[in-house]
């Protein structure tokens, strides 16, 4: 090997190493930042168009006024993981005379979204809330009252700001905070 070849190879290595000094870091600083696809977009099924709407498949959201207690979600889930069981809720519901609503065990749920597809009354949706970890196994069981409320805001110190991924060839892929 000639000395000039060795020197040019050495310089190439140093140059590619130095380039990483000016590159932005790829890491998404999760508890402060989060990539959210679109605001308030729920995973659901549109019967007229026969297609799913976009959205992350996270915690469910149940509409108590639309649910008729037809058990279609439970029947669908029985073939998969058996996370949904119907429980009775006290109160008067005009569309649901028996008053039975799905309760979901998130220790069993596999977030496949088939219960949302099976719901022909547009009562079941999925939100983008994925922070479902618990200290207690029993706390993973969500009753109808719990899944009928929209997910709570995260605590102030870990409330995630919305970020988006920028693919920059010169400075490297990185995340920036979204304005809107």
């Amino acid at each position, binding site marked *: 090997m000639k000395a000039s070849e060795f020197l040019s190879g050495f310089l190439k290595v140093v140059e590619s190493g130095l380039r990483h000094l000016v590159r932005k870091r*790829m*890491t*998404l*600083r*999760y*508890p402060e930042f*989060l990539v959210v696809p679109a605001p308030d977009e729920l995973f659901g099924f549109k019967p007229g168009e026969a297609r799913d709407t976009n959205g992350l498949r996270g915690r469910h959201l149940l509409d108590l006024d639309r649910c008729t207690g037809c058990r279609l979600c439970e029947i669908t889930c029985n073939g*998969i*993981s*058996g996370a949904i069981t119907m429980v009775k809720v006290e109160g008067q519901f005009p569309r649901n005379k028996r008053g039975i609503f799905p309760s979901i*065990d*998130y*220790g*069993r*749920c*596999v*977030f*496949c979204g088939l219960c949302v597809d099976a719901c022909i009354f547009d009562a079941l949706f999925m939100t983008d809330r*994925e*922070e*479902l*970890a*618990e*200290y*207690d*196994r029993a706390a*993973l069981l969500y009753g109808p009252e719990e899944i009928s409320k929209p997910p*709570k805001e995260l*605590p102030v*110190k*870990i409330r995630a700001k919305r970020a988006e991924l920028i693919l920059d060839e010169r400075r490297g892929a990185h995340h920036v905070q979204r304005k809107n």
Partner: protein
Amino acid sequence: MRSETGRKRLALSFPTGGNGAAAFVGRLRDIIIKSVASPLGYVINWSRLYSLWPVHLETACCSVELGAAAGARWDLERFGVLEAFGSLRQCDLLMILGTVTRKMMKRLRVIWEQMPEPKWSMAIGACCISGGLYTDSYNVVQGVDMEIPIDVYVPGCPPSPRKIIYGLLLLQNKIINSDVLGRPKRLPDREEVRIV
């Protein structure tokens, strides 16, 4: 409740009263804990929660998500979780990722007994929390919390890196609210969870 039955705390097995060598060791341990707990307890716990070394017991696809969480985009090492470990006896966090069969359960218990106190465990994925897709299977353990104690449950099939990191935040909040021996004084609420 059910999970506490499997917990064996070797450090607490020395008697505190009576005579003999074991009782002397027990009394000495109490004195050392009392002298360290009040001035240095917070510092000890703080250093513990940012140097969690996990044993990742990877038996199914959840391990791919832990790999993604350790990668460049989510970077578990920001929280002090170093995935490359030397020995089980240097680790203090057991991450159970995936389906645990009845044969694997024996090995899992051996791994758990080998780890020194204080130690914590995370059940990640539906399979090891409750059996998941293998509900009513003849050879899959229907929830590892029947055998060993679990501190944090992370649901999902498989859980995304975001869920795993949130479960880790919960575990860090539990550790900072523990005493020097690693026993939780109280469990923080879901609204209290914050970056420690």
